[in-house]
């Protein structure tokens, strides 16, 4: 563990904390804990409830009696007790005979008086076994229920959820009375109910069973099931069973919600991938098998920007993605423009040849990336503000990075819709794709419009790659995994249709995730492919066919 005193903590300025990003989450949370504990040290002085006997009882003796003393002390908490328990948990307590000392760096402090004392040479570490450690964690969590920080309180409730010790009841009731945030208050109520379930009083158990019915937490289900096994009273048993049913119903809803969310998430990624294709294939009719590799370029551009920020702007590291988005777009767009000028323009009207040539491009781009960055996957980190998630129901948590990507996909979609339908460039693109000779007669430089349109589609592929780098691996094969899916989306949605692309992407994403829950990932993918093949039989023009008369469908 870390031995940090308030002086060293002072030097832990925010920038330094940023530098320590690569310390794992665990260590980071430890840092926070230590920080919190030393805030408590600062506050020492007001109350004097901590007695020398309590300290001794908590630090010396067999584990069982120490646990008891700990519980007793925690029932009437104040800052000093909290600080001492934190010190115990951080292995910062030493004993010398009957003397108990808190060690801070090279100094030793008497926990009762707060005075600095010389550290005896024969001081021994207090050994905490696993039982003691678990108890310390729980007590600390219970104490954290009174923290001023809402996040810490929420975390504390989560930690305590699995542990239904009746000794903690007064503490939780106290916290319940003091709690002002409604969401947390209801969670505390559930916690209280779970503890009450073990009470000897039948009325209390009944009341608790009723309260628990409102919970949507998987751990509540376990608690109910466990109680059901040992419950003798028929009335309570019935109440427990009805509660269990309602909890299960909530959980089932949660599962469905989770499937919809992960479907939306996959759909948003497919949408990003397919939006670029909707321009290059849907509008321009160019089969671009290198689309996946353009995404790969976007992802590697993100990686490069990350490296640049790490090296030159470590203080702004959290915001590297904001710079990576335009860079990824430009990198892919420039590559796309070069490809269009150099190769693809000579193949207009020959879709099968375009397919083969772009496949060749994709092979070369893959090998290029392998030569530059190596064949291994490279690591792209989530910024801090994208890690973590929102807890919606007991069993549903929405990760921030997925939420951000959904938002990003919507933004890209809107931006593209605006670009195509409202701007001059969009007008040109539509004009050229609908009737090239007439557009040309009107003075539109069709060749240039082609290049711009292709670069735009490629740039959006780069954006998709930038988004993908936040949720998946970045490697030379990144594009290969998505190319079949993305073509399916465009084919399903109908060529030349933005709306069709959107519906097809979201529909495929959600369908895939629901089938996954039912049959497993690989079979789901196969089922989706087979369904698409069958669907194309019925509607070869996709969901939203272009209206018109054409012998050549």
């Amino acid at each position, binding site marked *: 563990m870390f031995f940090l005193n308030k002086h060293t903590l002072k030097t832990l300025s925010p920038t330094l904390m940023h530098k320590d990003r690569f310390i794992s989450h665990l260590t980071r949370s430890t840092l926070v804990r230590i920080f919190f504990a030393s805030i408590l040290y600062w506050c020492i002085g007001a109350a004097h409830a901590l007695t020398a006997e309590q300290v001794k009882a908590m630090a010396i003796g067999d584990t069982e009696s120490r646990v008891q003393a700990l519980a007793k002390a925690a029932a009437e908490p104040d800052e000093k007790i909290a600080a001492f328990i934190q010190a115990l948990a951080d292995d910062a307590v030493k004993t010398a005979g009957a003397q108990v000392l808190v060690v801070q760096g090279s100094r030793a402090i008497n926990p009762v008086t707060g005075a600095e004392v010389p550290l005896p040479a024969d001081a021994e570490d207090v050994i905490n076994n696993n039982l003691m450690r678990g108890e310390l964690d729980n007590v600390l969590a219970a104490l954290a229920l009174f923290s001023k920080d809402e996040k810490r309180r929420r975390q504390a409730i989560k930690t305590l959820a699995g542990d239904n010790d009746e000794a903690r009841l007064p503490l939780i009731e106290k916290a319940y009375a003091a709690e002002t945030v409604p969401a947390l208050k209801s969670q505390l109520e559930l916690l209280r109910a779970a503890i009450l379930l073990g009470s000897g009083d039948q009325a209390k158990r009944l009341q608790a069973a009723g309260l628990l019915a409102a919970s949507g937490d998987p751990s509540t289900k376990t608690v109910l099931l466990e109680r059901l096994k040992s419950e003798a009273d028929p009335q309570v048993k019935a109440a427990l069973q009805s509660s269990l049913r309602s909890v299960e119903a909530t959980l089932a809803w949660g599962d469905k919600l989770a499937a919809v969310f992960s479907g939306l998430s996959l759909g948003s990624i497919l949408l990003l991938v397919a939006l670029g294709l909707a321009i290059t294939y849907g509008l321009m009719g160019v089969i671009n098998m290198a689309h996946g590799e353009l995404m790969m370029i976007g992802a590697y551009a993100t990686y490069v920007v990350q490296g640049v920020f790490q090296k030159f702007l470590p203080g702004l590291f959290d915001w590297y993605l904001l710079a990576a988005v335009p860079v990824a777009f430009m990198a892919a767009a420039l590559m796309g423009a070069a490809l269009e000028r150099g190769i693809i323009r000579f193949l207009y009207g020959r879709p099968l040849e375009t397919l083969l040539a772009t496949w*060749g491009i994709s092979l070369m781009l893959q090998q290029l990336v392998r030569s530059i960055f190596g064949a291994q996957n490279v690591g792209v980190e989530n910024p801090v503000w994208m890690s973590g998630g929102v807890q919606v129901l007991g069993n549903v948590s929405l990760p921030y990075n997925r939420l951000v990507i959904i938002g990003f996909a919507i933004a890209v979609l809107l931006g593209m819709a605006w670009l195509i339908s409202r701007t001059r460039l969009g007008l040109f693109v539509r004009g050229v794709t609908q009737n090239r000779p007439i557009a040309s007669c009107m003075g539109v430089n069709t060749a240039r419009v082609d290049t711009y349109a292709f670069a735009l589609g490629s740039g959006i592929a780069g954006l998709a790659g930038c988004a993908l780098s936040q949720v998946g691996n970045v490697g030379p094969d990144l594009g290969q995994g998505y190319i079949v899916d993305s073509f399916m989306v465009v084919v399903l949605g109908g060529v030349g249709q933005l709306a069709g692309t959107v519906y097809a992407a979201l529909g495929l994403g959600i369908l895939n995730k629901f089938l996954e829950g039912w049959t497993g990932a690989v079979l789901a993918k196969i089922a989706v492919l087979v369904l*698409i093949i069958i669907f194309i*039989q019925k509607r070869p023009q996709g969901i939203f066919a272009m209206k018109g008369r054409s012998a050549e469908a």
Partner: protein
Amino acid sequence: MNHPSNPPNSLTPYQSVELPSRAPLLSRTGWSFFMLALIAVCAVAPLLNLWLPQDSPYHMSTYAVALLGKIMCYAICALAMDLIWGYTGILSLGHGLFFAIGGYVMGMYLMRQIGLDGNYKSTLPDFMVFLDWKELPWHWTFSDSFIATLFLIVLVPGLVAFVFGYFAFRSRIKGVYFSIITQALTFAAMLLFFRNETGFGGNNGFTDFKRILDLPIATPNMRMTLFVLTGLTLLGFFLFARWLVQSKFGRVLQAIRDAETRVMFSGYNPLGYKLTIWVISAVMCGVAGALYVPQVGIINPGEMSPANSIEIAIWAAVGGRATLIGPIVGAFIVNGAKSWLTVAYPEFWLYFLGMLFIAVTLFLPNGVLGLVKKWRGTK
């Protein structure tokens, strides 16, 4: 035309159209080249490989036999691809699937031929013992019989192609749509074969074959037999394809390629033509796969990856589409370059292949053979 209510003079009189008489199967030079190839495969190669001593400069190494045998299997695929793409205008990106199916059918037979010599000394193939299966799954029923295996090599790819092709062509899926869907098909099949519970050995596929028809498989004689067999199959398929494209059937195929709508307006239903050539092409690939597996000694789902299928197309394109000899030449050029480059400059191979794709589509629409014809024409 000759409707009775029409006044007789307002129409040009009906004239019967003389179809040009059928061209000979091969020209005189064609036949001589064919005979040369036949002699090379059936006599020269065995002589150089088996009769000449190892240290002779003209000795054909086992490596060369294996490599050429493999490439001849690929050439059959390229020929099949040419029939469906070069002559009918349908680009399939799923021919690797039929190749792999043929290979798997053969592989199942070869796995059964291992008998009790596997690592687990069981009558079941090793991977089934590993998965703790007690009996053969239903689709292994005929894997004991060589005759049944021969039938299945033709039947299974043919059936898969027929079902898929019927639905695809009936709803008039064509062009790039068809290509992408065939790619999805082989991709889905690959995922399926990667699964252990489908009973095809998962990602490891089949390997460690011991014998074929109760004869050891790794002897020089067996290698040479398989080599000759592959060569004969290739030559046979070549003659068959030649006969096919010169027949009326073949002409309709080319008409479909050039203007499908007009063919339909002339009263032909393209469905039957496309379906027939599609199934024939698939079966040829299946046979190639079945010849490939005993020579290479392994089959796994990687053969179904979309990349493999698309490579078949490039063999045909490099040699020259719509010329039957072109794809065979193309398969030899590309795979020869591959076996050399992947050893000598492994980094460079994908660049080369990529360049090949681009260069052939941009500069050589008629492939190497078109280039040769052009040079001859200008001289």
